[in-house]
């Protein structure tokens, strides 16, 4: 009996001890710990804690915030965020990452009531964001409600053919990267390459997911490729049309069919899953059709690194901005956030013009001086050009922003070989491009989710075949268009036009 009593007393003591040990002492001051998502390409950062500490050293005194960074791979982001918010996990600042190609969108979350409306918070704490963003600010709105704050990044892209410089030189061609050429000029090069190289070599590095028609025939897709679009980049007309049924698209399809018949495109194209930089590495291809600034003016440099050779850009359409192209990374405050005011205050800091020593955006996107980067050049207004510290590169760095989403990304440090002149070009880029008339508008698809899913399936079925010219346009295109109509595209276009007209009226 005695033993039993002793043992239960001991057990009780142990339980109490454990409880006492695990209880975290409550924070004396009212510092808010902000949990923020950061985006990776799958690697783990050994320097994450140092980065957090460096940020806290700035933010704790200034606005009473400390951060916990939550690294998530870019491709996991939509499902991770949706699951976390549904199961009521705390996230204070979440990233929505459409990457200029509709990979994700505000409506994915807002239709499930996952995001806080930011209008009031933005007015009170977002002054610096407002000054920094300009036109880009519109991207965060759905109707009158602001759900997200976009990163300040390239709003536009140009349509171009990028080719291996060495092959162009061999063929005796040279192009000025700042001039606008025509598709015929590009076709001349492709023909010359095919003739010189023969079988097994292809002028266009094509792959299943790389639809080139939007490059050959630029449109504004109004936030979703399945809801109708404005032709010619939306620069002139605001009539919503089924772009697949237009003469322009017909001509583009015929053009690509001809490329295919001429042997410019690998006959295996619709089962190739490698992307164009990988294909160019094989030495069997000349170049690829891409939206030049899809990953920034500096994107070409990154691609040159991964291809391992110099690339020449041949532009054939001026740089233009649409909602989809400009939506790269956006920051939203989900309903699980416990202190929205402080979170907005923190977000605002990322858009301020600050000295390097207290620049949170610079730390988030490049890490710490001496540990992850070294300064190569400091410009007059404090912007810096940097390089990785010795022995470390993009993938092995203990911390790297990787994805340009941290506030004012047109001013955060840039890596060599970007020089001062190019950095100025980058910082000014959004003031020099043309904007679609519907820039900032996105179709509210809430009541059409079923049709859009059906349309997406039709697009999946036909897009690659037609876009790479592997099938006869005359027989397949009418079938494609009739299936799109059967899936309900016409109704959506009608609704889209109505919403757009209302939006345009409100803009004035």
């Amino acid at each position, binding site marked *: 009996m005695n033993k039993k009593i002793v043992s239960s007393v001991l057990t009780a003591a142990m339980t109490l001890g454990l409880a006492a040990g695990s209880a975290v002492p409550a924070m004396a001051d009212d510092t808010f710990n902000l949990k923020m998502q950061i985006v990776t390409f799958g690697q783990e950062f050994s320097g994450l804690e140092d980065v957090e500490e460096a940020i806290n050293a700035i933010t704790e005194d200034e606005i009473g915030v400390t951060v916990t960074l939550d690294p998530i791979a870019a491709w996991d982001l939509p499902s991770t965020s949706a699951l976390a918010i549904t199961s009521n996990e705390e996230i204070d600042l979440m990233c929505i990452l459409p990457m200029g190609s509709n990979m994700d969108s505000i409506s994915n979350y807002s239709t499930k009531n*996952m995001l806080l409306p930011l209008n009031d918070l933005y007015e009170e704490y977002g002054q610096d964001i407002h000054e920094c963003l300009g036109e880009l600010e519109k991207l965060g709105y759905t109707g009158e409600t602001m759900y997200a704050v976009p990163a300040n990044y390239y709003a536009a892209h140009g349509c171009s053919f990028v080719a291996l410089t060495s092959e162009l030189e061999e063929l005796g061609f040279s192009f000025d990267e700042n001039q606008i050429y025509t598709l015929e000029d590009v076709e001349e090069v492709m023909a010359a390459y095919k003739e010189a190289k023969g079988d097994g070599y292809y002028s266009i590095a094509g792959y299943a997911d790389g639809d080139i028609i939007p490059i050959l025939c630029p449109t504004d897709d109004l936030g979703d490729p399945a809801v109708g679009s404005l032709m010619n980049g939306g620069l002139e007309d605001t009539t919503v049309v089924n772009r697949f049924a237009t003469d322009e698209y017909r001509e583009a399809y015929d053009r690509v069919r001809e490329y295919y018949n001429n042997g410019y495109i690998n*006959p*295996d194209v619709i*089962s190739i899953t490698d992307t164009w930089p990988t294909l160019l590495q094989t030495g069997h291809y000349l170049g690829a059709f891409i939206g030049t600034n899809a990953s920034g003016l500096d994107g070409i440099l990154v691609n040159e690194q991964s291809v391992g050779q110099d690339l020449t850009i041949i532009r054939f359409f001026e740089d233009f901005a649409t909602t989809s192209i400009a939506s790269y990374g956006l920051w939203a405050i989900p309903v699980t956030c416990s202190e929205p005011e402080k979170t907005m205050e923190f977000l605002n800091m990322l858009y301020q013009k600050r000295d390097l020593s207290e620049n949170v955006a610079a730390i988030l996107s490049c890490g710490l001086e001496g540990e992850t980067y070294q300064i190569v050049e400091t410009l007059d207004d404090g912007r810096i050009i940097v390089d990785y510290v010795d022995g470390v590169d993009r993938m092995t760095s203990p911390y790297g922003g990787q994805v340009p989403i941290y506030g004012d990304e047109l001013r955060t440090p840039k890596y060599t070989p970007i020089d001062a002149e190019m950095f100025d070009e980058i910082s000014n880029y959004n003031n020099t491009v043309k904007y679609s008339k519907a820039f900032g508008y996105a179709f509210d698809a809430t009541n059409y989710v*079923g049709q859009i899913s*059906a349309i997406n*399936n039709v697009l999946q*079925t036909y897009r*690659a*075949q037609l876009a790479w010219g592997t099938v006869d346009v005359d027989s397949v295109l009418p079938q494609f268009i009739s299936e799109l109509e059967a899936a309900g595209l016409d109704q959506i276009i009608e609704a889209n036009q109505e919403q757009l007209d209302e939006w345009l009226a409100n803009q004035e």
Partner: protein
Amino acid sequence: MTAKKKNRFVQCLPFYLMALPGIIYLICNNFMPLYGMLLAFKRLDVRKGIFGSDWVGFDNFKFLFSSKTAFTIIRNTILYNLAFIILGTAIAVALAILLNEIRSKKFAKFYQSVLLIPYLISWVLASYLAYAFLAQDVGLINSVLRFFGGQNINWYSTQKYWPFILFFVYMWKGVGYMLIIYYSSIVSISAEYFEAATIDGATKWQQIKSITLPLIKSTVITMVILNLGRIANSDFGLFYQIPRNSGALYGVTQTIDVYVYNALMNNNDFAMSAAAAVFQSVVGFVFILVANAVVKRVSKQDALF
């Protein structure tokens, strides 16, 4: 009477206890998430939670049936599964019988391992293996065709070959695993039957027909009914990876799972995915009931319930 019942319960108690971990697992894993089916009939609003969200009736099911694709995907799913269940089972049973006839233990083990290896390969790898055969430019089959003066076949955009390719790949990958159960029930048949039959002068074929097949019948029926329960589900890896998601082949390769993936990949709509899953479960449930009723009529002792 009650005393007797109670007595029996007490007797069986140890067995119930033994089953307890399994039962708890079933409850946690299979029964508790059932409330998620509610989601299929609601428009999810995370601030209200699953129970509090607004009812929308069958709205979430619309995307499955809103185009003419609906017929294609349901037909593909069910026909492929029927082929897999009927032909697949026949092939697996045949292989199991053949395997059992191999006298050398070493060789029997060797063959079984060889048959099982593809099952352990991931679908992505399998897709590249298939690609090595079927690629237009450098693929093995087209190279052979060209060598003999034939024309290239564009495999990834010609629909008519794919029912056979998919069936072949499915069998190649799965048969080693399927035959394990049949093989083990054949092995457990008492050798005395066969000895007696041999003495009576029965040929091998007669032995298989009159001893092996009748004795593994109930195993086969059980497996078939269980498989029928999943008739509206499909192996996503097979139908998505092997055709390399080529749109030109959708007419014969797209199943409900692949359609749901393609349609909802971009918008993470839990409610609509839940609707698709509910639809698949209901179809599977109906098939189980019907199949069981049929079996009950034909041979009562083999029915599941």
